[in-house]
């Protein structure tokens, strides 16, 4: 039962600011994903929570106690590293039980706890093996068991599945989510994969250039991005420049309602919010490419003004390459000065 609070946490590497002062509160049992591109500061923030980096300023509060200056070995946190970081000279049991041994636990108790942790990650029969005898997925399970066996207040995961193939990544992600829910352990999960974040997180913290861009549930982040960066980073998005005049803006062959002051703006539309209506040749947008993804089609259609629409439809919708369609948009967001200033959302 633990909460994590970050108050004005910042980090400078020399003259470079890796993290601007930021605040975040993570509730007990919550799984929060830190999502952002390389260099956004997400791993630095995770390492500050874990004690591997000292913050330049601010507080890291776990259950109200400031641990910002506490070394990792004395923090109630445990981290799963991207590269497994198993000790090759130890068996699986040795790796998982090492932390318990350091805590002076008796051997029978260590054996019981290690066995339970390995069973939880599905490696009950692998205790006597060495890491070199395991697959990548099994190694990462051992790394997870090594953390869970210590019953940390906060579990930290630094892109734990980045080195695994897609199929294994999806499976392990689900397993981790189930274990996390079962144990109710507060978890901070770093990833640069938007699908991973959307599928696993209770809340997502989108980061860019050392700043938090937006915090919200996966649904909020996806449907109500607050900045163009979030809109463009999460999922596919049509981002079109337009000039607003008298409460409206035209781009890509569509006139958008824009009840804001006249001037430049950015209009964002999700591909699945665009419908293609058959039209006469030369009107609307010409379909120049269709890619079949099985259940859905991804279409590119070029409007007369040169704007290219990315459209996603169900595979049963009849669309022909080279034919003309009139795009219709059910939902859009208008950004100005890097903030969302108007939304049209039928839901």
């Amino acid at each position, binding site marked *: 039962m633990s909460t994590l609070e970050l108050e004005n946490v910042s980090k400078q590497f020399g003259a470079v600011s890796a993290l601007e002062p930021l605040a975040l509160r993570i509730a007990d049992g919550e799984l929060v994903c830190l999502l952002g591109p390389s260099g956004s500061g997400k791993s630095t923030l995770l390492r500050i929570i*874990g*004690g*591997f980096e000292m913050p330049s300023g601010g507080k890291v509060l776990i259950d109200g106690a400031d641990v910002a200056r506490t*070394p*990792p*070995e*004395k923090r109630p*946190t*445990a*981290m799963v*590293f*991207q*590269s*497994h*970081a*198993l*000790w*090759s*000279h*130890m068996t699986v049991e040795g790796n998982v039980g*090492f*932390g318990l041994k*350091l*805590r002076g636990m008796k051997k029978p108790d260590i054996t019981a706890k290690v066995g339970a942790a390995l069973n939880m990650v599905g490696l009950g029969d692998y205790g006597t093996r*060495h890491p*070199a*005898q395991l697959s990548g997925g099994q190694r990462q399970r051992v*790394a997870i068991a*090594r*953390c869970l066996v*210590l019953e940390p207040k906060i579990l930290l995961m630094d892109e734990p599945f980045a080195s695994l193939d897609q199929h294994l990544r999806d499976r392990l992600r689900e397993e981790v989510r189930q274990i996390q829910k079962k144990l109710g352990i507060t978890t901070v999960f770093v990833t640069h994969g938007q699908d991973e974040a959307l599928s696993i997180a209770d809340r997502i913290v989108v980061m860019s250039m050392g700043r938090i861009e937006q915090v919200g549930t996966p649904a909020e982040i996806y449907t109500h991005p607050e900045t163009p960066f979030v809109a463009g980073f999460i999922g596919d998005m049509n981002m079109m420049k337009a000039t607003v005049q008298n409460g409206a803006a035209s781009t890509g062959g569509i006139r958008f309602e824009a009840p804001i002051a006249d001037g430049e703006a950015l209009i964002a539309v999700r591909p699945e919010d665009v419908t293609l209506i058959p039209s006469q040749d030369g009107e609307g947008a010409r379909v120049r490419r269709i890619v079949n993804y099985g259940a859905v089609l991804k279409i590119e259609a070029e409007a007369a003004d040169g704007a290219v629409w990315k459209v996603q439809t169900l595979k049963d919708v009849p669309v022909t390459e080279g034919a003309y369609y009139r795009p219709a948009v059910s939902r859009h967001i208008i950004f100005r000065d890097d903030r969302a200033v108007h939304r049209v959302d039928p839901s």
Partner: protein
Amino acid sequence: MSATAMSLRNGWRGLAFIAIPVTAIAIFLFYPAALSIIGTLVRPKDGGGYTFSLQSYVFFFTDSYSLTNLGRTLWTTVVTLILLVAVNLPIALYMRFTKGTLATVIQALALFPMFVPGIIICYALIRYMGPNGWLQSLLNLVGFHHYASPHLTPWGPVIGLIWDGMPLTLLILISGLSNISDASIEAARDVGAGRLRILVSIITPEITHSLLIVSALNFLGIFGQALMPFMLGPTNPEMMGPFMLRTFASVRDPLQASTQATITFLICSLAGVAYVRSLARRPQEDRK
């Protein structure tokens, strides 16, 4: 061409590729070494012909001077080996886990002896720590007049061999340490290990292979060392290297010199076997 025929042809090409160096080693190394060893065991009889005899080995192992020399050589080897690891491991650890100008300077200083010929190292040591050398002069200047030079004591060769062996030891240890990822050290800290525990339980076992190589190569180099103890000056007892030289060149007893060489070779071959086993075992472990 079938796959089998192609594989066979490639096999012959491979053998042809290594034939010249292997033949050269056999002719110029193994053959004279075998002749020398056989010469210590098969001796000419007075009336003509040859007989098997262990007389020269019996002499060596019953001669107190020879045994003392063997003991001194072993002592020098073991002490130098321990000190080499003790001196170089902290430097290698510092260089592995510290980045910056100081680490680069230390690395340059530690590797410097690699580029200095052994004979120069010997003279430098004599001029520095020998009687009336730099060290004694400097100590005199600060009022210390009881300096006893170690260069003709058992510690003379030890100091010289440490200086000589530092670069190789350091390079192998750094190579071993570079295989330990930062994440595995951080993972150990994360589960509660302090610095000493990390050194004992994580780093040392992870570099066992490098420590074995360092020990084996240095053992071979130090035990059979002739130049350093010879150049530093005559001692009593003496190391096997100068002992062999003197027995051969001054005493003019090639049989005893060959016997001493054979015994030295047999002891060194134990370290050689450990080295080869260590090399052979590592890839198998990696393949698991």
